[in-house]
């Protein structure tokens, strides 16, 4: 269960970080809704990247 919690939180954190960054960009630059759309997509990517890294599918960046 610890492992499952770890993987899900890695993914969710990626999406949250992407969405938060997108929201921040939009609020700063007034580009709503494009920043959120693009950065949330990237957030999904980062979340999957996190999960793959955490589960050992890809080599961790530090070997």
């Amino acid at each position, binding site marked *: 269960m610890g492992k499952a*919690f770890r993987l899900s939180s890695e993914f969710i*954190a990626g999406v949250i970080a992407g969405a938060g*960054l997108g929201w921040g960009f939009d609020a700063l630059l007034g580009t709503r809704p494009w920043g959120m759309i693009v950065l949330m997509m990237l957030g999904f990517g*980062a979340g999957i990247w996190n999960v793959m890294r955490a589960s050992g599918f890809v080599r961790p*960046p*530090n070997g």
Partner: protein
Amino acid sequence: MAEKIDPIHQFQLVKIGQPLFHIGGTEVVLTQSSLYMIGAVALITIVMLMGTAGRSLVPGRLQSLVEVMYEFVASTVRSSAGHDGMKFFPLVFSLFMFVLVLNLAGMMPYGFTVTSHIIITAALAVLVILTVIIYGFMKHGLRFLGLFAPSGMHPVMLVILVPIEVISFISRPISLSVRLFANMLAGHIALKIFAGFVVTLLGAGLWGIISPLPLALAVALTALEFLVAVLQAYVFATLTSIYLHDALHPGH
């Protein structure tokens, strides 16, 4: 059923005494949460001081406890952050002991779980990530940014990969804090709900016959919660070491 069973009630902060002082318009009050943290730090300090006071070759009980703790965290740091990561050992050890003692204190009957508040875990995670960023830039300067650009990649791939790596880095403190907080919160709520079932069933006449079922589950969950309490402290320490490894060796 006059008393309603409220599984969230246990997380409420209780003010103790008068406000200590004011910052701006906000009053600073001692809560049971801050009292638990002070108690945890005091307990750790006392155990560590007493455990290291004797320094006998054949350790007594307290000394072997302290030695086991030291060896455990030291091997975690060595395997995750490398040998030069040992300069961060005090940080990782303090974090581990703090989280461990607070998690276990929450398992005491009538205890309060400080780590079930996201503001506490977020503060700890921000501390870790600020250490990584500040130390990374201090040691490597701008080369620390190489963390975001894996070497040996096609330049076109970098356009996509760099934003993903940046978001991945930003998500680290979030996942670090949310994991600890969610584990403790969910576990304690589940425990309270199953314990509540027992009481509700006992008060429901004939249904009281099946009340041992949730009781057995509550007992099993208690054991699981002890495992989670220790495991999450260990996970927190391991991930801290992994992130510190990035600060020490940002190159891929």
